[in-house]
């Protein structure tokens, strides 16, 4: 039977000193974290708040013995930093699209098309992007109707409204989806 992974002794000592607030180790781990946050790959501005947020995560995770020693401590720290950078990118992406999500009325097409990707199917990806940006109430409704083949009658019963109300809600959600798609550079 193989033994459970454990941090190597040097990393175990480093963690202990980090949790105790040892100046040199805090600086070292902060350096690992800051280096990941400042990678050009993310396209993020210098963000010391993010570095601090990641240190909070590390203090909590390491203090709760979440580090199992499957990798080196440095690799673990870099992974935590990476996923927080991805979270930051996602928040940024969400902010960019927030006006769309809050706007119900169709908007005029924009000239700036998204960058072209080498993708298996642009249409599918564009449709996914539209659906991902729809308000949750629309996603849920369209999912039941289109992906789960619920009938208008079933939806009317589930939502406790008239069949006609469901039809008009679906129509509004479809209009919203068309507006989003136009704005993203596709034909309605």
């Amino acid at each position: 039977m193989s033994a459970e992974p454990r941090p190597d002794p040097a990393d175990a000592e480093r963690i202990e000193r980090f949790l105790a607030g040892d100046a040199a180790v805090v600086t070292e781990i902060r350096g690992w974290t800051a280096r990941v946050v400042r990678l050009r790959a993310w396209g993020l501005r210098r963000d010391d708040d993010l570095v601090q947020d990641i240190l909070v995560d590390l203090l909590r995770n390491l203090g709760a013995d979440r580090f199992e020693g499957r990798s080196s401590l440095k690799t673990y720290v870099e992974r935590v930093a990476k996923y927080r950078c991805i979270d930051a990118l996602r928040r940024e992406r969400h902010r960019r699209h927030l006006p769309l999500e809050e706007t119900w009325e169709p908007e005029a097409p924009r000239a700036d098309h998204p960058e072209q990707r080498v993708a298996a199917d642009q249409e599918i990806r564009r449709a996914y992007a539209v659906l991902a940006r729809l308000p949750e109430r629309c996603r849920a409704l369209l999912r039941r109707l289109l992906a789960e083949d619920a009938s208008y009658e079933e939806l009317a019963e589930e939502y406790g409204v008239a069949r006609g109300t469901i039809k008009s809600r679906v129509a509004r959600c479809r209009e919203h989806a068309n507006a989003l798609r136009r704005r993203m550079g596709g034909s309605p």
Partner: protein
Amino acid sequence: MNDWLDDAVRREGALMFSEHPESRILVLYADAAAELDAAERRSVDEHLRVCDACAEDLARLHAAAGELSGEEPAVAGPGLRGRLAQLLTPRLLVPALALTTVAVLLLGPGGGEDPLRPVGRAVVLRAEVERGAAPVAAPDVHGRVTLSFLLPDDGEGPMERCDVQVTDAAGRTVTRHADVPAFDAYGTFVLSLDASALPAGDYLLTARDRLGERSFAFTLERP
């Protein structure tokens, strides 16, 4: 109508409504796919087939790995003075947050096996705000709240020590800590309060340093 939508859902089914994988899953997928189980890997594979945003995130992760492997960091920091053990147990440590922010660290349930999953939830909120918009703190299972605040460099070096006083909405002193050492070289201070006997309401943390006073409002909430 929108035939494009019907066509896409007809072709890909519920995948068109799938949620993005959590970012930590995407990191493991890029860095160490072997640490994911087969179902998780398959789920990410399928999602990437339809989601440009996650494909872009994955490309950034690969680029980041390339950058990281290309150079070693130069870690050169100023001398630090971490002496948090005087204030906190290791499980209650919180480092610095942003300039003029106060962080309220809420220790939630540990739970789960995932080593990357954040333990509990850290809420970062702005300080020096209207009382009605103050950060909200709820005591953890031990009845404590942990506050972190930053006293910025005044041009003569970072703050190394300060006196801290917490007062309630009526101005009564709830707790006082003298000569609190900073956590790091950036003027970060951390305070773990026993809030078990404190009523819910608005409080003010006032830090006094060589420049004078700086106040951080927070609201204590009870579940």
